[in-house]
């Protein structure tokens, strides 16, 4: 397929995507829009987790900690000033008298998450494999403990509620698109190549001049940036942030989405996150009907274990979706069924 053709298809797909957003925003029910927003947020989370864990091969269990940071930053920034003065007594005066919009909240959420990732990464990324996994899990627990106890800024276990519902599909859709685009561009660049090389064999990578610790830190920080943004979008979608929201279940959910989509495949993550969001909603509806809750968790964990045993590379492995691939698949199926 010619390159011009490919970019035409890509542009057309993006156009369709925004058309869909437009239609949903105009005609979709509240519930439809909420599910679509969650889907976009899960896509951001999964794709950025894939950058650090799949593409870079960092064994992080703590990414949701960055989401938590992003969500709290957004909550503190966007909470109406009156409520801030009542609830969040520990804030400096200038902060408690303003109410920020979504864009500055998003940017600051991402930046702060990235800064924390930078500091944490300098320390934790020196660890390998399971040790890194448990250290990052420790980070997640630390974030939760702080959120639970720093009453004057996070309001502790009660959480911060009454956040303005700024988030809409234009924001989440655009953020998801930017995340996908940035991660894909990183993958197909010398930076991404270095990441993959370090993942495959870090000593061999160093032997050809790749600064392994630095490239790992870069992947970790970029991943945290987008995860933080997802947190801010989440806060202003749900309207409440509380410490328990960003913990083990969400961590596992995103890991499941990434592994099933294929570690290392950005498009796999997108497809998987979208599919699982819908599955999650269907199951939730089912649970509501029979009034037995928790089945979806159990089912997801079981699915994950089956995938890891029988198809450990996930659906896409580490390949990427491309129009050429689609064309070939179409040709193949046409040949099969004349």
């Amino acid at each position: 397929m010619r390159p011009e053709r490919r970019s035409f298809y890509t542009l057309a797909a993006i156009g369709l995507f925004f058309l869909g957003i437009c239609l949903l925003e105009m005609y979709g029910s509240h519930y439809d829009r909420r599910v679509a927003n969650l889907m976009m947020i899960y896509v951001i989370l999964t794709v950025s987790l894939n950058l650090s864990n799949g593409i870079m091969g960092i064994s992080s269990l703590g990414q949701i900690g960055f989401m938590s940071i992003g969500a709290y930053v957004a909550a503190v920034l966007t909470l109406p000033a009156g409520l801030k003065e009542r609830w969040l007594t520990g804030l400096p005066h200038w902060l408690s008298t303003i109410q920020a919009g979504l864009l500055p909240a998003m940017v600051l959420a991402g930046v702060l998450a990235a800064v924390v990732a930078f500091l944490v990464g300098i320390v934790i990324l020196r660890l390998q494999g399971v040790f890194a996994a448990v250290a990052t899990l420790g980070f997640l627990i630390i974030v939760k403990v702080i959120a639970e106890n720093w009453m004057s800024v996070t309001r502790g276990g009660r959480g911060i509620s009454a956040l303005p519902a700024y988030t809409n599909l234009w924001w989440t859709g655009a953020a998801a698109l930017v995340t996908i685009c940035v991660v894909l561009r990183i993958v197909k660049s010398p930076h991404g190549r270095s990441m993959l090389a370090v993942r495959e064999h870090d000593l061999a990578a160093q032997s050809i001049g790749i600064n392994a610790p630095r490239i790992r830190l870069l992947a970790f920080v970029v991943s945290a940036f987008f995860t933080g943004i997802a947190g801010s979008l989440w806060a202003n979608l749900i309207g409440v942030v509380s410490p328990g929201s960003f913990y083990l279940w969400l961590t596992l959910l995103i890991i499941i989405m990434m592994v099933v989509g294929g570690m290392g495949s950005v498009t796999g993550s997108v497809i998987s996150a979208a599919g699982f969001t819908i599955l999650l909603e269907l199951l939730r509806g089912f649970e509501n009907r029979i009034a037995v809750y928790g089945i979806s968790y159990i089912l997801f964990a079981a699915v994950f274990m089956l995938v890891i045993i029988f198809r450990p590379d996930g659906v896409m492995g580490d390949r990427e979706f491309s129009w050429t691939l689609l064309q070939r698949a179409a040709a193949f199926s046409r040949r099969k069924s004349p």
Partner: protein
Amino acid sequence: MGTDFLLKIDALSVSFGGVKALENYRLNLEASRILGIIGPNGAGKTTLFNLITGFIRPDTGRVFFNGRNITRWEPYRIARQGITRSFQNICLFGRLSVLDNVVAGCQIRRRPSFASTLFRTRAFLRDEKKLQDRARHLLSVFGLEQQAERRAMNLAYGDQRRLEIARALAAGPRLLMIDEPAAGMNPKETQDLLDLILELKARFSLTIILIEHNMNLVMPLCETVQVLNYGRLVAEGTPAQIQRNPEVIDAYLGDR
């Protein structure tokens, strides 16, 4: 002090858990030479490679490359100075394509800024094209151009060995260190490898250090041969001298 040596090593020693893996090793290597290092298994040859390339830190001793003291540098910095290597147990980037293995080596010189990666500037695209072209050219030198799109782990054994050398060479070294390239190769493949190394040396004006057991490779290639045994340098000389040296024969075939 004659400082014309490309690589100069003084009194290098390291021990692991009380066992002296390398003891008081010294070397003066001029540019454009091929040095062979032989010795039985466990003699300390690979340890020496790991010391020079920074993967192991020495207990004592100093390594000078191109007049600069590179002792205790990080491996990636030593590589950027111009020393690259292959590994005894093949260490390719298994799931990457053959081409990407080599491109990863090529990109040592020009590393784009993160911003240009994100915004795909014209310079970025031009450099990326250059990298790919250079890598494909190298693959053709190694006869691997047909395999460019395959995953490295799916290559045949001999091709994997050559790809490792290609990757090391892609990083544009002045000193190339090859660890047992002929292990597990048959005589025909070994002969081809010999021709390849000679061609590389001439084409890229390399200095080469070679660890090898197969004398059919060492003898015709190397101008100087060092023999290690129990972590110590036991002999040094031309291949002909080494071949006649009774101590060397004993080290290899066992003492009488």
